[in-house]
């Protein structure tokens, strides 16, 4: 029986299935796509990732509206994100391959499509301090789906400290603002976020913790 389970499981996972539907919905991939997977020569050759500067310039020239660059520290992967929605202080950005990052007042509010995503975050208190360049403490709650699929909150207590005004060129773009650091602890997590905040209170560049699975994200606003 163990053999039967394992073999069938392996077969089901490895081979998958091919489907076709006149309603145009084929979650398992179309027959054609399924065949393409097993046909030789269908894999594209790997290419070297472009530098952040090249990526930033390409993004600015090809995407309209607000654009940002985000890098996952753990993998080093850098992606371009263009704004696809705005709801009050919340902005939703998508990458060309439809992964999503949501910011509220420049603070990470959610990620989507990466796996082990940040489902939501309550950051009002922290955002007030960060955007007003004021030191202080505030609560922050980040929420995740646990292994069995239930939403779990991760509450943390955060201390915001203000650093020096700086001017810096990044990916070919000049930024000037004030350094703001946020140190959070709670629920077994120790988090150090950092922001470069403009005089008007806009987060220009930041390093923010997305969660235990995704780690830190470095987010650089290319066009507001």
């Amino acid at each position, binding site marked *: 029986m163990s053999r039967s389970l394992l073999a069938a499981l392996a077969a089901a996972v490895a081979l998958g299935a091919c489907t076709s539907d006149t309603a145009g919905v084929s979650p398992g991939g179309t027959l054609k796509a399924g065949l393409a997977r097993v046909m030789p020569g269908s894999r594209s050759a790997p290419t070297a990732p472009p530098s952040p500067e090249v990526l930033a310039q390409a993004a600015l020239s090809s995407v309209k509206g607000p654009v940002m660059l985000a890098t996952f520290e753990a993998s080093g992967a850098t992606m371009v994100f263009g704004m696809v929605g705005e709801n009050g202080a919340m902005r939703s950005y998508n990458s060309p391959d439809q992964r999503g990052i949501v910011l509220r007042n420049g603070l990470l509010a959610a990620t989507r*499509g990466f796996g082990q995503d940040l489902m939501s975050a309550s950051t009002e208190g922290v955002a007030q301090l960060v955007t007003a360049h004021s030191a202080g403490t505030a609560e922050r709650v980040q929420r995740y789906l646990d292994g069995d699929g239930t939403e779990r909150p991760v509450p943390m207590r955060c201390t915001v400290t203000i650093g020096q005004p700086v001017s810096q060129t990044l990916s070919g773009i000049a930024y000037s603002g004030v350094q703001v650091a946020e140190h959070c602890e709670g629920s077994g997590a120790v988090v150090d976020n950092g922001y470069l905040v403009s005089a008007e209170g806009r987060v220009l560049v930041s390093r923010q913790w997305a969660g235990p699975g995704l780690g830190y994200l470095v987010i650089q606003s290319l066009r507001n």
Partner: protein
Amino acid sequence: MAHKVSKIAQISTLALIAGSLPMAFESPAHAEPTIGWSLGTYGAPGLIDMPTAEVNKDGELVASVYGYGKSGRGNFSFQIAPQLTAVLRVSNEDGLADDGGALRDRSFDLHWQVLSEEGMRPALAIGLRDLMGGGIHGSEYIVATKTLNPSLRGTVGLGWGRLGSEGSFGGGTRPVTDPTGGLNTEAWFRGPAAVFAGLAWQANDKLTLKAEYSSDAYEAETAAAGFDRKSSLNFGADYKINSMVKLSGYYLAGSEVGLQLTVALDPRHPPAPSGLEKAPLPVRPRPNPAADPDGWSGAWTADPTAQPAIQTAVADALRKDGQILDSMQLSADSVNVRVRNQIYAAPPQAIGHTARVLTRALPPSVETITVTQISNGMPTSSVTFRRSDLERLENTQAGEILAAAQIGEAETAGAYVPTEGLYPRLQFGLRPYAEFSTYEKDADLYADMGVQLSARYEIMPGLILSGAVNQKVFGNLDEQTKVSTSTVPHVRSDIAEYQKHGDLALQRLTLAWYGRPAENLYSRVTVGYLEQMYGGVSGEILWKPVDSRLALGGELNWVKQRDYDQRFEFLDYDTLSGHLSAYYDFGSGVTGSVDVGRYLAEDWGATFSVDRELANGWSVGAFATVTDMSSDEFGPGAFDKGVKLRIPLSWATGKPSLATFTPTIRPYVGDGGARVDVDGRLYESVRKTHMGALYQDWGRFWR
């Protein structure tokens, strides 16, 4: 402060720091079960042959293969509740059969951690090995395990039966058990008892060393197969290859070497990160009334092109998302869409996507948004939102939008405009299949691999013609030698005869009609070749209010047995079978059901089932059927029972999919307590969209 601000320096150079944080989100321990460090040779938490008082992780499914000399065991353990472990085992014991050959046997164990470890108190467990078969593994134990330091655990226990066979005291003689199945309660904790003990030491993250003083005399093995028991001490080492796989080596009784491979599937630790999918479309907030006075006033309803344009836009957006807009009812202030979710295992995720799509497509005057889920053509539940709540609560804690939403009975009447071009709808698919012979004492395992072509033609919503054909590619099921000797009608025991035919075997070909005859009622009529072995007519009705934990159902089937080649011919046997069923949702994903009625061999009785499902779709269930068929007529095992698993493909790949892998494992396929296996039974068709399941899965609403 300086060192904190230096984080900015990292940003300014975009220095990439690899590595992740050590994280521990576990809530404070209160009576957490004591989780095992290693698995014994019987597939349950243990040292080597001796058990410990530990348990596996809740919900974990562990398969292990153990061999020593020419003997071997395959163990399957399920952690059915945090404190309760069940083990199914097949074994091949060299020289122990009556004729001196290998004894092929199966057995079933239960292991219950009565107390978890707390402070000075050790964990305490009791267990029953081979509690039904009366075979050579039959034994019982009480065992305590204590963590002596963070990497050392000690175990002491008292065993009966096989575990009381060396160094035993007292107890007189152990009663002989009936080997034909049923619980051998007469022998439990009877006869001589003996003490066993052992230690487990976690040398490092990968390696655990074990030693035990065994109370197992290996009497039968010594007598029949020349097992040389020189010592009561056994030694072992576990090496963790990765988070799922372990390899163990043992030195047994001073003379034998054993090896064990363990694969553990923990439903809470999927092999792929959950959520590798397209980001949902965001909510689009409405413009202020001054910017769109016609949209806000509802004047747009006077334009006859508005509704079709909106419906087309919504249907297109949903199609790209993997859903189908079945029909729509739109007025100046409200909308009700009927949607078929073809992709997300958790309906709240599908509902969340639909609601967001609607905020993007509807004129501002539409404030009430109702999303109705369709399953097999039947509207099964409706969730109603205020659009302003969706705008206000986007990407917040999922519980907030749940509190603001209303979940209720789906509207079955109303002026719905169907989406054009959906029906008739044809779907077909091609997938691999694997089929295995049933487990038989003293028989080899046979298997076929092949492809299954399936098609589904929905003529109109709820009227579905569907079928599936299997074509074997290779395998040896046709070499099976088993012949059923059952003395009752061979309603299931001729399975080998069916399995021998793998060429264009028609698995099913049915016309099914699903309906909503009245509020809270669901109906199904299925005609045709219902399953591999039966064709006929099956009718079912289900009462299930959306917010009710209780559901009641009735099913009546007239079926005729199909010919072994699974084409269009029938054998002589036909019968009427039927059941009255009660289902109950106990919460936390646990559902139970009782089916009372007449089974295929015209035996009367009842089936009891319990299923436990996690929000990620994993489910483990067990069932047992007791009928008036005698245990002699049924054969080994005395009555029909087994374990049902459901492992979602999305758990393994992290990508959204409705596909599942659903094996049912029966220790023995007999003719008693057998039901016809009809596709699309009603409770499973509606349950996931009703209140209990929606609440459980709701965390995915904004995903």
